[in-house]
């Protein structure tokens, strides 16, 4: 019970078929949940428990990512790839990962997939962004520039750019072809966004073609990438840890027991209460229409599931 009390969910990822959810916690475990069971009309308490739990890493699983066939998990210094097919078959024996990275990267906080060239961007505690080729698992390049560890990554497909946010308060935009940093925005230097009382670190970053959302110490703000200036600043009190564009809204989570729905203009439309007091991860299952749910996890062993964005339907539990 104590264990459950102290559990924090750091990462989530949906299976390519959209029927399963993988979640990683601070104990290094990954749990697999069946969404079809949990969402079905005959769902009961058992359906809300994982169909499979296994220890993936020694340290917390800060980042999870799914490709078409594999689940990638990042732990203390290593990246493991698990076959979704195998996972779904629920092999309870100790599952060796299909792949383990060759390079030891301290404390991987973020991973981002670039489908254009099938590469994986990895942000680490060594202040660098490493680009790995998924074909062979080899590391192609290193993007250096940050002066403190990387918190978050985002890929801008159309422009072949990778964006990284770090503890040093900077958001850097890298061209993947040249591996050069094309822009560096020090968000905390902008008065409209800055919140010195919280610090300068950027914990959340996401892009949507021409727009970028970033936040953390500074307020969550919406930036227009061409002009590189903040167009809206969102009046949310806590530090935001994850934000995403969804339809014509922005959904964001962080410190605070709610999911905030915001509009592009800067207005906070609604704040929907959730179970965890502080939320680390927010995910929307875009891989399936009938299981299109929003899930949030944070400082709790519960993962809230929303069938309708405006209220919590039920919770999955580790």
């Amino acid at each position, binding site marked *: 019970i104590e264990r459950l009390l102290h559990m924090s969910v750091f990462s989530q990822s949906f299976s390519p078929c959209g029927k399963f959810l993988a979640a990683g916690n601070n104990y290094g475990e990954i749990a697999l949940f069946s969404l079809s069971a949990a*969402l*079905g*009309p*005959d*769902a009961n308490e058992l359906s809300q428990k994982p169909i499979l739990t296994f220890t993936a890493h020694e340290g917390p699983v800060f980042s999870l990512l799914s490709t078409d066939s594999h689940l990638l998990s990042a732990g203390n210094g290593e990246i493991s790839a698990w076959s979704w097919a195998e996972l779904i078959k629920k092999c309870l024996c100790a599952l060796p990962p299909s792949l383990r990275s060759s390079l030891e990267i301290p404390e991987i906080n973020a991973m981002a997939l670039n489908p254009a060239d099938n590469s994986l961007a990895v942000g680490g505690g060594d202040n660098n962004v490493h680009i790995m080729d998924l074909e062979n698992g080899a590391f192609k390049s290193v993007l250096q520039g940050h002066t403190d560890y990387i918190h978050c990554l985002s890929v801008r497909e159309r422009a072949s750019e990778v964006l990284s946010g770090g503890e040093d308060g900077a958001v850097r935009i890298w061209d993947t072809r040249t591996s050069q940093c094309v822009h560096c925005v020090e968000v905390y230097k902008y008065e409209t966004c800055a919140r010195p009382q919280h610090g300068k670190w950027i914990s959340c970053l996401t892009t949507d073609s021409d727009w970028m959302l970033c936040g953390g110490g500074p307020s969550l703000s919406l930036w227009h990438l061409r002009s590189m200036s903040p167009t809206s600043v969102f009046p949310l009190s806590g530090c935001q840890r994850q934000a995403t564009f969804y339809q014509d809204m922005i959904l964001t989570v962080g410190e605070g027991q709610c999911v905030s729905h915001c509009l592009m203009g800067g207005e906070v*439309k*609604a704040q*929907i*209460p959730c179970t965890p007091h502080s939320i680390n991860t927010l995910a929307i299952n875009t891989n399936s*229409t*009938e*299981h*299109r*749910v929003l899930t949030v996890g944070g400082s709790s062993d519960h993962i809230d599931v929303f*069938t*309708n964005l*405006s*209220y*919590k*339907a*039920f919770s999955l539990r580790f």
Partner: protein
Amino acid sequence: MNVVKLHLISYHFCSEAEKKTTLDQSLRGVLGDQIKASCDEYLALIYISIEAVTEGICSATTPFLLLGDVLDCLPLDQCDKIFSFVEENVSTWKSSTFYSAGKNYLLRMCNDLLRRLSKSQNTVFCGRIQLFLARLFPLSEKSGLNLQSQFNLENITVFNKNEQESTLGQKHTEEKEDGMEVEEGEMGEEEVPATCSIPIDYNLYRKFWTLQDYFRNPLQCYEKFSWMTFLKYSDETLAVFKSFKLDDMQASKRKLEELRTSAGEHVYFAKFLTSEKLMDLQLSDSNFRRHILLQYLILFQYLKGQVKFKSSNCILNDDQTAWIEETTKLVHQLLKEIPPEGEKFSAMVEHILNTEENWNGWKNEGCPSFVKESDELTRLWNLHADNMEACKSDDREFMPSLDEFFAEAIEQADPTNMVEDEYKVVRNSNYGWRALRLLSRRSPHFFQPTNQKFKSLADYLDSMVSKLAKELPKDIPSEEIKTGEEDDDDNGDNLLKESNDSPSMQSKMVSNQQMDDVAAKLGAKWKTLAGQLEMKASELREIETDSEDVDMQAKLLLVAWQDREGTQATVENLVSALNAASFTQIADNLSEA
């Protein structure tokens, strides 16, 4: 028509009662013959029968029998026209000639019609019939009341409990075999169920619609286990309402419109649509929420209320009462948050529920009639045959006499009583107003023109009071008045002296008549007298501006002098002034008069 001829022939040879029966029969016969005719002809015939009743040649029940016959034979669309006729004549039905004879027939006729009509298809017509009945009968008519406060237990809300039954409902099916309509938002058996395209919260769906069963039959709430379930489901549902705030009105309206058009032409709200696909949309709809929240409030009112027909074990325990109180507050808060005009809606609902309490009380007393007999009103009305005359009678004379009213003021005016100014009753504005009114009716002093300027009503009243004091009957044995006179003597020695000569006359106040005489004699020379009378220049100017006529001016002078002098405006004083101004002749005339 032959039937009529035959009856007419026998008509002459029958008694009154028999005549009536004959006419009744003939009318019915004619109607029967005319069965293929148009509505207008029926109505004409029925109209004749009404006239006949009024004339007294036909029994009062006949029009109703005729109506009944007609409605029984006609198809529903024509019944509509006949019914309009019935509606228009409601005042006739309510009149004494027709009411007692016809009310039962009318009731039966309406009930028959209602049974034939479909509540969902002919809602308007059913409504009209109900409204007509409501107008026809008094409020306490027992047949129209749910005397026992029973519930419509047949109003069951059906929803999908199993996955297999869940389909993409597009059309509403109505089972017409037994007339019972069960709308489920389901489709016909032919169509193949398509796969669900949105995630569905079955948990909420089931709990939500289960609540309807509690609203249908509130007595379940008194059973322990049912109550627990109700509590749990309600908490969850209300938590969803709380979490899911409504704001985007336009978007939800649009979605609902789309749904409606896809669901077919028949859209009505007699029952809830319970397809699980609709759940999300329903939750975003303001009106839907208001329905549900209102259901809660009505339920709570019933549970808490004193209803005579509840059995003795239908009592809430403390926990339940506490939960109901808390939840009522939450419901009202949620109502206030629902746009548009949530606050107004919530206030209105509260008001209506309060009114309900009255109706509940009325029911508990067995629905007594509202026509009140009041003894008190009858007595008042019957006091006098002609109320206007009664008002004129003497014992309705309430105005006090001058001496009664001013007695207190006069007493206070007396310096020996040493009543301080601020306590004088003349300073009371209320008293002052009444005093003025009384003076205007009773005292000639009121209308005497005066030049004296009074700074306040109180001062004016003071002077009036002193004038009145002089005039009042002196038979009041009062030491005060005597001492008052003594004081006057102190002020004017010459008064005493002159009074010795001609006591009765000289010490008298100058009368109006005397003043007129003097004024007439003075004429333009009044200014000379003014000097003797110690009038100020400003006052003289005022007199001049007030009037052009010299006699009038003289009069004004004297009046001003009188006002100023008050009790000192005696004949002696005037005489001495006149003498001093060398108007000896006038003075002599005055003394002699």
